[in-house]
């Protein structure tokens, strides 16, 4: 009995241990080896989960043509990131995705050391001949959920659980409140920065505080499903972030904005295989499928669904832009002039809060 067990362990160990050595040599040109460096673990049900879903989409779509390696918990910055990117390149990966903003400096550095390896960096702005970036227009989804909140909120006050005051987060907040105020001109959005992307207990406590102070809608730009789970118990409507969080809020999670990286990963891998890849900086929106708004909860009334769909469709066919002026900032000054549709550069460096936001930094 004990002998058998030990033998099985040994056998299993040896066969599998031999695999990595073989794969590097035998597969050569046939498979494209693709490496992913993850900020945290897929189990966060947020940012990294969404990237992992994208990686799985890639595996499913291209099957034998790719071999995918994922490294978890690489962290936000520093020598660890560099080391992991270098390790992935040394393992023979020819396409490497660095999946968070903090990986930018490391990606620039390591991509220069491996000119024959293609790197892509998520949400950054620096490029090189073998380094591209990719991002998604999350704010388009925020405009959709803001519309829903504007229609359905009785108090006209929503709470926004935020991470850091970076342009991406400010942009999302603004899109939400602008959309809500198109429906209810008195709508107020209270926002709180937690200085963390992931602390379930703190996110939950912040949601509770918002609700206790009269917010009747909760939305978040942090990664854990804790606020959704809390809202489900308290009967407060909310929205999922980064991944479909309806499992945590079957009744109260009205819809989720899903970061949908799969299409980009598949397109990029195909381009690399075909030899047509060029460094680019795609910023995919609802139109390109860079993000997806999941089907609305049955509790969302039909007219609200129709209004949300109109905002969604307008952004897909380009007839609606949430940041089209005139817009005021939170102190009443001019934010976007009348008739102006701001360019991407304006959006990507956004630091100003739109009218209706109450925030403390």
């Amino acid at each position, binding site marked *: 009995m004990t002998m058998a067990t030990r033998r099985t*362990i*040994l056998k*299993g*160990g*040896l066969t*599998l*241990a031999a695999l*990595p050595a073989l794969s590097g040599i035998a597969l050569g040109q046939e498979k494209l080896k693709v*490496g992913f460096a993850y900020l945290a*673990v897929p189990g966060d049900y947020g940012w990294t989960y969404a990237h992992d879903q994208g990686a799985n989409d890639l595996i499913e779509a291209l099957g034998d043509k790719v071999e995918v*390696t*994922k*490294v*978890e*918990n690489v*962290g*936000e*910055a*520093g*020598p*660890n990131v*560099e*080391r*992991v990117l*270098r*390790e*992935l390149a*040394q*393992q023979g990966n020819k396409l490497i995705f660095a999946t968070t*903003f*903090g990986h930018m*400096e490391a990606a620039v550095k390591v991509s220069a050391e491996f000119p024959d390896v293609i790197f892509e960096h998520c949400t950054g702005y620096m490029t090189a001949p073998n380094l591209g970036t990719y991002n998604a227009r999350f704010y388009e989804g925020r405009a959709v959920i803001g519309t829903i909140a504007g229609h359905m909120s009785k108090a006209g006050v929503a709470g926004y659980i935020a991470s*850091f*005051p*970076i*342009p991406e987060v*400010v942009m999302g907040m603004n899109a939400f409140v602008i959309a809500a105020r198109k429906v209810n001109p008195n709508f107020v959005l209270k926002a709180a920065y937690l*200085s963390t992307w992931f602390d379930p207990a703190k996110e939950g406590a912040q949601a509770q505080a918002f609700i206790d102070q009269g917010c009747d809608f909760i939305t978040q730009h942090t990664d854990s499903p804790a606020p959704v789970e809390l809202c489900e118990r308290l009967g407060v409507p909310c929205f999922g972030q980064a991944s479909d969080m309806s499992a945590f809020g079957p009744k109260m999670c009205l819809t989720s904005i899903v970061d949908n990286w799969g299409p980009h990963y598949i397109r990029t891998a195909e381009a690399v295989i075909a030899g047509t890849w060029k460094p680019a900086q795609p910023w995919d929106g609802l139109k390109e499928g860079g993000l997806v708004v999941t089907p609305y909860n049955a509790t969302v009334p039909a007219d609200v669904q129709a209004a949300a769909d109109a905002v969604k469709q307008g952004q897909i066919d380009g007839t609606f832009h949430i940041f089209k002026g005139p817009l005021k900032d939170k102190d009443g000054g001019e934010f976007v002039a009348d008739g102006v549709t701001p360019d991407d550069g304006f959006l*990507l*460096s956004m*630091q100003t809060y739109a009218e209706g936001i109450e925030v403390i*930094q």
Partner: protein
Amino acid sequence: MQFRLEKRPQPSRLMLYAAPVLAVLLTMVAGAVLFSALGYNGIGAVLEIFTKPLTNPLKWQDLGVKAAPLIIIAVGLSIAYRANVWNIGAEGQYVAGALGGTAVALLTMKMQGPWILPVMILCGILAGMALAAIPAFLKTQLDVNEILTTLMLNYAVVQLLYFLLRTSWKDPMGFSFPKTPLFTASQSLPFLWPGTIMHWGVPTAIVVALVAWFVMSRSVFGFQVRVVGSAPNAARYGGFSAKRTVWLALLVSGGLAGLAGVLEAAGPFRQLVPAFPTGYGFTAIIVAFLGRLSPLGCVIAGLVLAISYVGGEVAQTTLGLPSAATGIFQGMLLFFLLAGDVFVRYRLKAVSTRPAGEAA
């Protein structure tokens, strides 16, 4: 039959050196069994983690860069622990060192010159010492337990880092991301050889260990520390001041942790980010113990821990082992080491407690 521990008349020299080796071997065996039981390739995982970083020359510089801060901090801690001063605030002192160096860097952004980096390093060391001076003062003047004060200060300093990065130290060109600007060339640690990632912090770690070894084994200070630590009463008769030893132990360990922090900030990071504290100050406690509280032992122990980190990443890329495995291996390594330690001072003696013939 039962086993009983019996005190050795003399600590065993053999076990002193055999225990860490045994601990590493036992960790490998236990890790292989545990991960096999969990459905992973246990033996493969152990081989990847513990041998790949050594057999693959590409990984050597990674090991050096990873081990350097661990060694520098652990050398300082081993001196403090020898003196029976339990500084577990190295994480905070490491961050303080980075803060001290970065403060200089931010003031000298528009300047150039070879003097900038030495000033940064000096300020880093001083910042680490300053933070360690708080528990030293409280311990010597008010007899406040240094374990508790050093532990508490870790978290306060990390919050200070967050605060500075979010407010006045934020890169004005950084789109409001909480990080400082990249350091200039005059503010960055040069590389040993161009084209590698091996920076001057790596040989610094070796030099620090050698100097500490020399001081501890050859100087009056080293003798004083060892006497105060192992026999406080004898030390009092010998005229050694316990208070001065506490001050020295905390200032040296705090200063070295600060040095590691500023080297890490000016070397691999070249800026400060909220992700800067990565628990090196806590891992270095493992290193200090694994290294038998001896400066040269810390060099080897630092390498072993670096192997477990780098190897853990290798095992992720080649075997799909989860990142959590690294923590499990490090935890087990320390468990086995601490358990093995007992045989340095004691030996196992079989004592028959039952009549012969009865199964034990």
